[in-house]
């Protein structure tokens, strides 16, 4: 009986997830301007990646720490950062924007009065964003694999895509976690902006975490340890490891990074679930509209 109930609930949750994704994709289809913005930021990111690759080639310190040195490799390094970075960005923004908008228009009240699964409702914007992101990620991925000369190497493609999947999962967990924090402290936009910058720069999207220490002996280690706390650090690192192969020096042994990724993702889900309860309780005291 109880098991049946759980099954029923899970099925209902998946339906909510599905209809949420359908809602978002319909929205995007009818509001294409957003896609153009997305495309532009991706293109700008790639161009920056190219510029960086020209500049960074000359930095022997970075090369020594990471094991990558040629301009091509640095270019791949950056493009990979940009491509994965869009996922982490949408994870950060999507649930929060959805919730802010739904509070503003009173939609959240209509959602919260239903027996639907809240987590499924919060997950759908991230998944939709991730799906749309694929339109941009796939070309970037093909470029990476082509330049890297591994377009036909199924092992590299398979493992890198596995890392991408792990990234998406961990970012969904973080996204909900963050949306809840944002609701509790209210000033969500600036915090999100700060975090999104922080996560891209700090976690090694553009500058390898490995090189922090040699770049600045005082702040380098501090930043490095902060970076260790975010799952994205391992996403970027693992993605590169599987692109470049064994010549790339990872932060920790590969299996350790996978474990950390898994554990932090689960931790964020648990904390997010706890925060969700907190937010709902707060909402019920003051009213959803003025959360």
């Amino acid at each position, binding site marked *: 009986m109880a098991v049946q109930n759980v099954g029923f609930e899970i099925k209902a949750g998946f339906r909510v997830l599905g209809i949420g994704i359908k809602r978002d994709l*319909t929205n995007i289809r009818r509001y294409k301007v957003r896609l153009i913005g997305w495309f532009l930021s991706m293109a700008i990111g790639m161009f920056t990646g190219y510029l960086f690759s020209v500049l960074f080639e000359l930095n022997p310190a970075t090369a020594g720490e990471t094991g990558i040195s040629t301009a091509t490799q640095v270019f791949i390094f950056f493009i990979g950062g940009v491509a994965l970075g869009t996922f982490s960005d949408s994870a950060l923004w999507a649930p929060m924007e959805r919730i802010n908008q739904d509070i503003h228009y009173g939609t959240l*009240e*209509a959602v919260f*009065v*239903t*027996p639907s699964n809240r987590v499924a409702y919060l997950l759908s914007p991230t998944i939709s964003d991730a799906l749309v992101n694929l339109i941009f990620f796939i070309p970037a991925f093909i470029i990476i694999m082509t330049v890297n000369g591994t377009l036909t190497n199924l092992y590299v493609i398979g493992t890198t895509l596995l890392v991408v999947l792990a990234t998406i999962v961990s970012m969904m967990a973080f996204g909900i976690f963050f949306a809840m924090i944002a609701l509790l402290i209210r000033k969500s936009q600036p915090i999100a902006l700060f975090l999104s910058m922080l996560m891209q720069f700090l976690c090694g999207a553009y500058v390898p975490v490995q090189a922090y220490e040699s770049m600045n002996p005082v702040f380098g280690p501090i930043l490095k340890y902060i970076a260790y706390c975010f799952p994205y650090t391992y996403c970027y690192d693992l993605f590169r490891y599987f692109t470049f192969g064994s010549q790339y020096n990872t932060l920790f042994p590969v299996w350790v990074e996978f474990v950390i990724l898994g554990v932090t993702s689960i931790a964020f889900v648990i904390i997010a679930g706890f925060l969700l309860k907190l937010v709902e309780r707060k909402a019920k005291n003051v009213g959803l509209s003025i959360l």
Partner: protein
Amino acid sequence: MKALIAENVKKTYKSRKKNTEALKGADIDVEKGEIFGILGPNGAGKTTFIKICSTLLNKTEGNIKVLGYDLEKDEKEIRKHIGYIGQDSERSTYARLTGRENLEFFATLYNVSKIDFLERLEEFKKTYDNDEIFDKEVMKLSGGQKQAIVVMRGFLHNPDLVFADEISKGLDPIAAKKIRKFVKNYAKEKGKTVIITSQIMSEIEELCDRVAIIFEGKVVAIDTPQNLMDELNMQLIELRLRTGEIATPEFLKKLVDLETVSAIEQENGFIKLPVTDSTEAFQSIMKICKDFGLNPVISYRTATLEDVFLKFCDKKVELEA
């Protein structure tokens, strides 16, 4: 079984600057199958009460049972069986989705099956008699059309109890009538319960089996509209003077001196006379008018729900009494 039992419900909105006591011990019970109205002036606490009962707000004190479920323990179960139409929620649908897509979205949140949803949609289409609102993106609908979608959303999952806060807000008289008919059928044919608030007294009078009047966070009256009106025991004769006619002080004095007339109220050409015996009053008044050479339009009415509302909720009236 009662659809709703609320005992001594209190709610204080706490904030750093000021605490607002929105409900100060409200008692309301609603029978199954009833259409129940909640009346009260702005800020009386109607919305607060409805939000508490529909699991959106915490009460500060009191006991509430919704459809036999304890509000605190069985929140999820309650949510499955109630519908909610919020005040100011005409923008609470997704603007870029069509009416139909919006309804489908929320039906899924209630875990309504696709087949059941389509059935409901047909029913709505028949009620509203205008397919356009289902096929257009919501942002291209008028305010009233948006509200119609929101109202239908509250009935999607065939709920046993529907809370409708300001149900006909922004609806034109024809649309409002359609919605009223729909609500009436919903309650009477399916045996479901509907609790509504409205500032349109005639709507409440037409729809509701019983009403509660909330004033400053307390229930000051609860009964059938008819009983409440009868209790006022009011009979009113109204004279409307024709253009050029003037009510002289002597004329007014004559009227007020009639034994059956208990008071007089005069406002630009209108004279209101509460009377105790209408037949007698009617004849005497006609005679006085004739004596003064006046030929006003004379009408007679008994108490309306508006009079009841004013009696309970107008502080000024209370002081005078």
